[in-house]
């Protein structure tokens, strides 16, 4: 029985350590360019009003940048898009600052810090930046967050018959939380998923549950990124999209449930 969770991928966005955008990542994943480790580069979110742009946190910058890259890649209109945000955590630096202050004698935390502490802060700023009033989902499934986001995004595509933008992203915590949750850097992956086969289609995607293990990436440094940053559990799928090879990959989700992802040609 074929899975109802299927769509056409029309746009891709990516930021990861050493991989500043999708074209750069594509060249590395195709083996045309060697991977060179470097801190993630997070562009200032040009869409936000100046005050918000200056104050935008690393996690907000990551989410907005990969989302906008996928939208531009697809030639879509962000103001009309339903979104699914999937993140393993919120703004780690802001969380640390709040916990530090709440453990001190002065608990009068800043209201801006408080409203930026919500798990859906990046989604809120995305709405303000793009004016999108369509539904906006914000999920967390710890290391399985990308898979959870993919499941809900494809379900919305299937039932609403409208494009859905999936944005999966993570940010690091500073110490002492870093020792408990050692995410090394910010990273994000965005996919614009369309129910219809249009002229912009890059590939078809079908997702179904499996018990198979995710296959590691051959390159040790890329495999480390996949294992260390939850959003980059998507890398085997992105490698297929980069090489253009149709076929099946398995992504880590939530043991024992894994996701079999079949990538088909246009």
């Amino acid at each position, binding site marked *: 029985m074929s899975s109802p969770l299927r769509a056409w991928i029309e746009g891709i966005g990516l930021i990861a350590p050493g991989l500043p955008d999708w074209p750069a990542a594509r060249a590395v994943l195709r083996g045309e360019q060697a991977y060179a480790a470097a801190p993630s580069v997070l562009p200032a979110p040009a869409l936000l009003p100046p005050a918000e742009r200056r104050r935008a946190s690393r996690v907000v910058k990551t989410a907005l940048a990969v989302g906008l890259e996928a939208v531009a890649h697809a030639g879509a209109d962000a103001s009309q898009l339903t979104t699914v945000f999937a993140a*393993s955590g919120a703004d780690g630096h802001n969380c640390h600052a709040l916990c530090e202050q709440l*453990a001190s004698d002065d608990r009068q935390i800043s209201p801006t810090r408080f409203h930026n502490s919500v798990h859906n802060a990046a989604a809120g700023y995305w709405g303000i930046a793009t004016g999108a009033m369509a539904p906006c989902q*914000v999920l967390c499934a710890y290391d399985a967050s990308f898979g959870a986001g993919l499941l809900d995004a494809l379900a919305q595509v299937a039932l609403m018959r409208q494009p859905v933008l999936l944005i999966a992203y993570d940010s690091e915590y500073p110490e*002492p939380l870093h020792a408990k949750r050692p995410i090394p850097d910010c990273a994000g992956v965005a996919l614009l998923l369309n129910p219809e086969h249009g002229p912009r289609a890059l590939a078809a995607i079908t997702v179904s549950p499996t018990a198979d293990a995710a296959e590691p990436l051959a390159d040790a440094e890329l495999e480390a990124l996949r294992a260390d940053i939850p959003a980059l559990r998507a890398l085997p799928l992105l490698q297929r999209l980069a090489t253009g090879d149709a076929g099946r990959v398995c992504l880590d989700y939530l043991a024992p449930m894994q996701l079999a992802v079949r990538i088909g040609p246009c």
Partner: protein
Amino acid sequence: MTPLLLSAFTATSCLGRGLDATRHALRSGRSGLAPCAFETVKLDTWVGEVAGVDDERLPTALADYDCRNNRLTRLGLETDGFGNQVRDAIDRYGRARVGVFLGTSTAGILQTELAYRRRDPATGALPDDFHYRTTHNSFSLAEFTRDYFGLEGMAMAISTACSSSAKVFAAAARQIELGMIDAAVVGGVDTLCLTTLYGFASLQLTSPRPCRPYDAARDGISIGEGAGFALLERAAGAAPGSVLLLGAGESSDAYHMSSPHPEGLGARLAMEAALKSAGLTPADIDYINLHGTATPANDAAEGTAVAALFGDRVPCSSTKGATGHTLGAAGAIEAVICALALTDGLLPGSPGTATPDPAIPVQYLLERREGRVRRVLSNSFGFGGSNCSLVFGVAA
């Protein structure tokens, strides 16, 4: 959408543990709010604290999950026989075919707040007994619930602030509709913590008195805590009178991080989408459980949207004067209150509210009313402009 059956449901809040305590409080117009005496918090505000949460013990094998939020999760799951209904569903469908979709705003962040008081004086390290994944992380309550029942299928936490546990109904319904799962544990759990108490105080959104939703003199929220759960299954063969989820609608304000759209535009879009999803019109709705946080801005915006869609024809109330604002649990707890409205013919009143705001032209219920209730709407709106409305009804 295809209607789904709420084959079991339960709620625990400051009104008490379970459906009987909740319905008794709603019938008598009792509020569970009390002056804040939580932990070491020194704020001039009232809260809705659940009694006995910290007496709850988790199974030994799940000890790493131990924190106030997961204690309340377990307490809620084992109320009204809900846990046994879930186990029966797992027997019927299998461990991989029952999903978990739970909402929260802060999960077990209290555990981290407490751990920050116990950092190593030399290194600054957090204590060894602090477990980030199973307490602090937003997924912790969903992962705990999945492990507690030994489930092996899909699970996710939804965290869109105060609409979180309304949106879980929509997400679970999608997966059931597509046949990816056969049943879902949906709900929400949030517990008192310093981040939300001091945070809402910093925004000057907490009232120094018990909150007064939709009152002309309303001056802020009372924060509560709670756990609400429902078991969703396909509705085929549902007994007459059973509670059904008929529709769900979601939208975004795209306006401001902590203030609602002033005309309630996002709220209106969510309500319209929920009615459309249910194949109903405003005239079909018998009661609206409002988001009604009791901040001046929220109630004005929501009231404007409700009046624009429904006029003053539909009786409506916020039950946050009774439960407090349970944040990420509010959607689920108010869904259960809607279920009680349907099963008991009980339209709740609004403890704390004395003079409904004359500037909001809706039919606001100060006192509970009894009558035939066939279809109800529940509103949940959150920080960051995330809105969700749900429509519930009864099986014919």
